[in-house]
């Protein structure tokens, strides 16, 4: 919510600039790759897909008894269209929203594009590929992988924003407050996103499976096989996962901060020196001031950042090699 469509001034200019440059580079690269994948069809198809994502984002779906939520669509776009085209499509949506609807600041486009398009599309794709490895090779497997990947992608987007806050906070709210609040809220939002994305992919698979890029390797036999996951089961399962995860992490991190710190030191994320973990002017003063346990926070930031970076990187790499096998006939 607050991590998306951020207005001007939400993060400091240096972060705005760096993310703008990084996003521009990635989007430019996606354009090149999309040209290979779609040749001259990419303009009408991407344009229409962007219209679809925009419309789907406007659309509110029920969450609980009158409360509604909205789809973000980054992971969904990547799974349907492939991560390169998906990123371009959501980028266009974000840019048009900022320019024409004043929804999102123009100077905030760098990090808005990164958080709403690049991270969900590539990290979402990476997660999708990983989940598909462990799920059955059939339509239900694709749908399940979509749901999980889309749900987690939302959390990762909020993590990315929190990291940007660490470097470019414009307000005296410490990083760990932002991080925990963002991740908690987006874990819940992610459940809705996961469900809706999974259900949409299921519907598309039923009508035109060739339009789901993430299922391109399935043969017609594999498509028809397998049971459908009951929606209620999925929600309960997802809630359990989230609660368990939160319990484990909080147990580990906050009851035993030294434990997490030890892990981080062992893994090389922070030095064993006990002074100012956040020394130096790299981090925003606002974000580091007031942190309870700096070592833990730095460890969390390092781990989270590494996770996001690894997933995005894996997404970038695996996107080029997809699909590994093609159906015959």
């Amino acid at each position: 919510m607050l991590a998306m469509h951020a207005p001007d001034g939400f993060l400091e200019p240096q972060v705005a600039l760096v993310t703008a440059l990084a996003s521009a580079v990635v989007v430019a690269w996606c354009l090149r790759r999309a040209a290979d994948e779609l040749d001259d069809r990419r303009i009408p198809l991407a344009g229409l897909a962007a219209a679809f994502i925009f419309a789907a984002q406007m659309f509110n779906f029920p969450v609980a008894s009158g409360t509604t939520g909205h789809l973000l669509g980054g992971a969904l776009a990547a799974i349907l269209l492939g991560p390169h085209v998906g990123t371009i499509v959501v980028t266009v949506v974000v840019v048009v929203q900022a320019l024409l609807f004043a929804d999102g600041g123009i100077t905030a486009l760098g990090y808005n594009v990164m958080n709403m398009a690049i991270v969900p599309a590539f990290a979402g794709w990476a997660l999708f590929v990983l989940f598909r490895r462990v799920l059955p090779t059939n339509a239900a497997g694709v749908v399940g992988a979509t749901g999980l990947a889309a749900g987690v992608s939302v959390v990762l987007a909020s993590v990315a924003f929190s990291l940007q806050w660490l470097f470019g906070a414009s307000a005296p709210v410490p990083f760990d407050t932002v991080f925990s609040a963002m991740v908690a809220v987006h874990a819940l939002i992610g459940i809705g996103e996961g469900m809706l994305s999974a259900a949409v992919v299921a519907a598309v698979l039923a009508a035109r499976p060739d339009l789901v890029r993430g299922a391109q390797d399935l043969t017609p036999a594999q498509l028809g096989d397998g049971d459908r996951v009951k929606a209620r089961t999925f929600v309960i399962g997802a809630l359990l996962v989230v609660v368990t995860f939160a319990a484990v992490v909080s147990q580990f991190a906050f009851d035993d901060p030294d434990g997490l710190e030890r892990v981080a030191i062992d893994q090389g994320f922070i030095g064993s020196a006990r002074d100012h973990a956040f020394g130096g002017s790299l981090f925003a003063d606002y974000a580091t001031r007031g942190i309870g346990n700096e070592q833990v926070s730095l460890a969390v930031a390092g781990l989270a950042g590494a996770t996001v970076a690894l997933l995005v990187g894996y997404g970038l790499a695996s996107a080029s090699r997809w699909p590994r096998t093609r159906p015959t006939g």
Partner: protein
Amino acid sequence: MAANPSDGLTVGAGHGRLHLDQLAVGAPSAVRRLPAAPKLAGLFAFVTVVAVTPRWAVGALVADAALVVALVVIARVPALVVLRRLVALAPFLAFALTLPLIGTGEQVDVGPVALSVDGLWAMWNLVAKATIGATAAIVLTATTPVPDIVRGLEDLRFPRVIVAIVAFMVRYLELVADQLGRTRLAMTARAHDPRWLWQIRPIASSVGSLFVRTYERGERVHLAMAARGFEATMPVTGWVTPIRRSDVVVALLPAVAASTFAITIVIGT
């Protein structure tokens, strides 16, 4: 997420019904007459200067705000339109208001409450910059028809493929949004009024079929393009938007003014 009557027609995220042809409103004005490309460049420049202006240069930011209000008046954009389109900022403004309360650091007593000094500055920073930036963008869209904005992006040498995708998206946006709205309406008419997340399968199903239909339209559009000779790149018309030097100067005035304000205050301190 906000509580919302699920009447099936409410389109959320602050956009309301989409009427792209009604984005440009208000009477003819000097701002309206400017070609789109200089206006876009002027907007980018101005918003960048404002974002970079330090928060403690209060005079500069206040002057920027006054400048934006002056633009609204010169462009003859109705105030209600501006306010309505600023609604998307609401959650962030609300967040800004909490900053003096939740902010860390030095505290100051304002009446019975202890407020964070840094929080107050942060609130000022966010409210000022977010509002100025959004209002400037609103002035642009209220004075520039959407096709002109697209042409402006092209004139500014944005990558042609991106501009083309934007153009197609904008062209089909209302069509697709209408289709989605009608599907929801049809479902509500058949008494499908879901309130819980796991009841969304039919809605998701309709969203999925909308994707299929939209994609297939994309394929048909491509056929139509090919039938009219399209090969790989969008054609060049050779038509040039007449842009006078004076247009560029006028459009860059706000950015220059904002820079002047900022530099004056910074140097004076």
